[in-house]
């Protein structure tokens, strides 16, 4: 009697654990299903072209063009990468190749703590310090592509640092020893052997950093100025896909709300492409 009871118990436990594991898939499905169900009808009603390439967003007049926001989202993302990637990669290389044990013990946790600062705090400090600085010394209102790029550039640092650090440290020690044994300096070994070997991981860190920047909302709302046009200058204000959703969701209804979910569909598509790209890049290395 008792062994079969134990077997039964094991079987039930396995079922429960399987259900737990399945829940993540269920949540992912629900998220996609509900965003699509709410967002897609408007694409049929208004037309994909008029939404994705439409220039004017005036939901109360039936205009749902989000092209300027798509362009703005990409602009701030590349701006963030332009600032965040060199700085983040420098930190990762220093940490992985140059820093001594004691230094690492202090630097690594300190850099990781940057990820813990909430995005509203970044946005707030951007408004208080970066925006007025730009207004005073460079020009414009200060709420701008430039300010947003700087704030986002700082916010994607932890992603870039931690992933490219992992990529660099997973390069086998023997590679470095080989290079050093042939008389190369530390930098020659790093730049010609270690970095090429960690190339795909570094690339993936930048792509995931872009994903973070595209998806960031609260900090962007606070410093971007939220104007509804394509910025033509670093000092122009702009509105991204994420801020469009967050600015209007609390009071939108009917078609207007659907328009925000359509914005969500476009945002989700961009994010999925970036995640897929990062995964692809990483997987290619593992196979190699």
């Amino acid at each position, binding site marked *: 009697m008792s062994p079969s009871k134990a077997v039964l118990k094991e079987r039930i436990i396995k079922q429960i654990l399987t259900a737990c594991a399945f829940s993540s898939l269920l949540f992912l499905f629900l998220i996609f299903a509900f965003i699509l169900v709410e967002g897609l009808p408007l694409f049929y009603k208004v037309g994909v072209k008029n939404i994705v390439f439409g220039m004017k967003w005036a939901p109360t007049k039936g205009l749902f063009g989000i092209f300027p926001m798509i362009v703005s989202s990409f602009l701030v993302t590349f701006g963030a990468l332009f600032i965040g990637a060199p700085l983040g990669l420098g930190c990762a290389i220093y940490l992985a190749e140059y820093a001594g044990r004691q230094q690492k013990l202090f630097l690594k946790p300190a850099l990781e*703590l940057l990820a813990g600062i909430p995005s509203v705090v970044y946005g707030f400090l951007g408004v208080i310090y970066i925006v007025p600085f730009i207004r005073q010394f460079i020009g414009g209102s200060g709420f701008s592509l430039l300010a947003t790029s700087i704030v986002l550039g700082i916010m994607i640092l932890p992603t870039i640092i931690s992933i490219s650090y992992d990529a660099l440290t997973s390069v086998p020690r023997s590679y470095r020893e080989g290079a050093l044994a042939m008389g190369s300096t530390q930098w020659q070994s790093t730049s010609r052997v270690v970095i090429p070997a960690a190339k795909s991981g570094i690339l993936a860190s930048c792509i995931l950093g872009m994903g973070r920047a595209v998806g960031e909302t609260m900090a962007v709302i606070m410093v971007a100025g939220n104007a509804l046009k394509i910025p033509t200058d670093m000092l122009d204000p702009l509105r991204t896909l994420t801020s469009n959703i967050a600015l209007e969701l609390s009071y939108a209804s009917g078609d207007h709300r659907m328009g925000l979910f359509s914005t969500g569909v476009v945002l989700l598509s961009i994010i999925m492409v970036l995640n897929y790209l990062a995964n692809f890049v990483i997987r290619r290395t593992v196979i190699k």
Partner: protein
Amino acid sequence: MRINPRLIDKLVSRTLSMQAYFTVGILVIIVFIIFVKGISNCGLSFMLTYPEDMGRHGGIFPAIIGTLFLVALSILFATPLGIGTAIYLTEYTKESRFTSIIRFGVESLAGIPSIIYGLFGFIFFVIKLGMGWSLLAGAFTMTIMILPTIIRTSEEAIKAVPKNLRIVSHSLGATKWETTVKVVLPSAAPGILTGIMLSIGRAVGETAAVIFTMGSSLRLPTSLMDSGRTMAVHFYILAREGISMEKAYATALVLVVSILAINILAYYTMNKVTSKYS
């Protein structure tokens, strides 16, 4: 003319170290500004009194309670699910198509931005399930958002438990579940705890997903179906609507100090684990 490679090496080393310290400097400056500007308005009475006039005067007591409830509930929901998933992936199955699909699901959830969670939680929990803006809707949304962190850290922690422990336990006649609960989980506990603490930090600092699911009522929530306001949301509203910069800094101070404390604790716990096994 050829520049001496040793000179280049030295220059590069200097530049890289400057970059690293510059980045740490950003963190130090952020914390310093928040501390200096916030400390004069931030005391025990600030944390324990009710706000008046939209937060222009008074304290942030309801926001602290709201934050605590949101964090406690989402951890309560996400921890069993996350640990269950991690146990399934590491102990109860071999790598297969099904596990790689689950891993894909977890990775995808981790990559979804918080505003999408906000949209989803709003339409699903708040509207379709009729929960309204409530603690429960916020907690469910946050549960899904922190689940990937808990799964990944628990999985790492469970994987790091030496195989011998399991073999010995099995040889003593323990079933798989007994081995998992009495041998594997206790050894993996610090690592799992790290994941939970990182998730707490994430939930405390989140705004976009919370504001559209839990709402932003300033009243003290008394039931799960009440709307409430977390410290992060309160801070966002104070700052964005320009209600009070002094109160905004003071709120930011409480917010940042609690998040940093949790993260430092998490880092310390993890370090203790890695040094134990290596």
